[in-house]
C-alpha cells in the first residue's frame, strides 16, 4: 500500500465525516420534535410517533438503507446513494434520540414548569428558557452515546455506492491484492474518533453524578 492509497482512504473519510455530521445535526432536533410529540400526548400524532420509533429502533440500518435506496425510485421519488444514506442515518438516529430526549422530558420536575406558568411565561418562552436548557444537559450523555453509535454504523453506507472510508479501503484492497492494510488504516481513522466520544460521554456522566451528589 502506497501513500497515495492511504490518501484515497483519507479522501473517503471526508464523505464519512460529512454524512456523520449532517446526520447528527439533523437527527438531534428531529429526535427532540418526536419526543415532544409523544411527551405532550398530541392526539393521534403521539401514537404514530410511538409506533414509528418502535419500528425504526428494531430496523437494521442496512435494511432501512436498501429499502430507501431501491423502493423510493420505484414509487417515483428519485434518490441517489448519498441522499439515501443521509435519509437512512437521520431516520435511524432520530428514533434513538427521541427516546433519550423523552427520558429527560419525563424526568423533568413538574413544579418548575408550573412555576414558570405562574409567573406568566408563554408556552414558547417556557420551553426555550426553562425546559430546553435543563433537558439538553440531562440528555447530553445519551445523545453523545448515540453519536458514537451513528459513526460506528457508517461503514455500511458503502453498500449503496457511497465512496466513504470503507469503500475507499475496499478499492485499495482490490487493487493491491492486500486487503488487510487498508482496513487497518480505516480502523485507525474510526477508533480514535469513537474513543474520543466515549471519553466525552464518560466525563459528562461523571460530572452529572457529581452534580447530583452535590445537590
Amino acid at each position: 500500500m502506497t501513500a497515495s492509497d492511504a490518501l484515497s482512504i483519507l479522501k473517503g473519510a471526508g464523505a464519512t465525516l460529512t454524512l456523520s455530521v449532517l446526520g447528527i445535526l439533523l437527527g438531534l432536533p428531529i429526535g427532540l420534535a418526536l419526543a415532544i410529540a409523544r411527551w405532550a400526548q398530541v392526539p393521534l400524532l403521539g401514537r404514530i410517533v410511538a409506533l414509528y420509533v418502535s419500528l425504526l429502533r428494531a430496523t437494521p440500518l442496512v435494511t432501512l438503507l436498501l429499502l430507501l435506496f431501491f423502493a423510493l425510485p420505484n414509487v417515483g421519488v428519485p434518490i441517489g446513494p448519498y441522499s439515501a444514506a443521509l435519509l437512512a442515518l437521520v431516520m435511524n438516529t432520530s428514533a434513538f434520540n427521541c427516546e433519550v430526549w423523552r427520558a429527560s422530558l419525563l424526568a423533568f420536575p413538574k413544579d418548575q414548569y408550573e412555576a414558570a406558568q405562574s409567573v406568566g411565561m408563554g408556552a414558547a418562552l417556557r420551553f426555550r428558557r426553562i425546559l430546553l436548557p435543563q433537558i439538553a444537559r440531562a440528555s447530553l450523555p445519551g445523545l453523545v452515546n448515540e453519536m458514537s453509535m451513528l459513526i460506528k454504523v457508517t461503514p455500511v453506507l458503502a453498500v449503496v455506492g457511497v465512496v466513504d472510508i470503507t469503500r475507499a479501503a475496499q478499492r485499495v484492497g482490490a487493487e493491491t491484492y492486500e486487503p488487510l492494510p487498508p482496513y487497518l488504516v480505516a480502523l485507525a481513522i474510526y477508533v480514535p474518533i469513537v474513543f474520543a466520544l466515549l471519553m466525552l460521554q464518560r466525563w459528562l456522566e461523571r460530572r452529572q453524578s457529581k452534580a447530583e451528589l452535590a445537590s
Partner: protein
Amino acid sequence: MIRDFGVVWSERGLLLEGLENTAIIAVVSAVLALAFGAVLTPALRSRHRLPLWLARTFVDGMRCMPFLLLVYVIYYGLPSLGLRLDNWGSGLAALVLYNTAYMAEILRGAWEAQAPEPAEAGVAFGFHGLGLFRRIVLPPLVLAAGPVIGNQMIQIIKDSAFLTTIALSELTHAASSIQSRHYVPFAAFITAVFLYWGLCLLVEAGVSALGRVAEVRR
C-alpha cells in the same frame, strides 16, 4: 402493490429461511458472547494491573470499532495472515468477539451495583473461586442485567443484518435476493423490517418474563 406482496408471499420459503438463519446466528452468538463475557468480567474487576489492563483494552477497543470493519478484517483480511474462515465462520466470530466486550461491560456494571453481602455470606459458607462466582454471584447478576442484555440481544439481531455484505444468507440477504429476482423492493424490504420488528418484540417479551422471575426471586 398488493401484487408485489403476493410475489413476496410466493417466495416465503426463502424469507423464512433467512429469518431462521438470523435467529440462529443471533441466539448462538448471544449465548457464546454472554459466556465469554462472564469469563472476562472478573478480569475487568481484577486487582492486578496486567489482566485489568488487557481486559480494559479489549473491551474499549471493541466498543470503538465499527462492527462492519471487524467483519471485513476477519473475512477479507485474515486470509492473508493464513487464517481463512468462510462467511458463516467470519460472521459468527465477529459477532461473538464484538459482543463479548459488550456483555463483559454490562455484567461488570451490574456487578458493581450488587450488594456485597450475598458474596460475603457465600464465602462464610465455604464457597470460593469459580464456585462462588458461578453459584452465588452470577445468577442475581444475570437477572439484574436482564433488560440490558435484552437490549444487547436486539443489537446483535440488528448487527447480524450487516452480514449480508459477506453474502451470509440471513433475513436482509433473503429480502435482497427477492428484490433483485422480481424487482419488488418495497414489499421485500418492508416485510423484512416487520420480521425484524417481530424478533425484537419477542426479545422484549422474553425480557419482561425474566423480569417477573427476578421479581419473584427477590
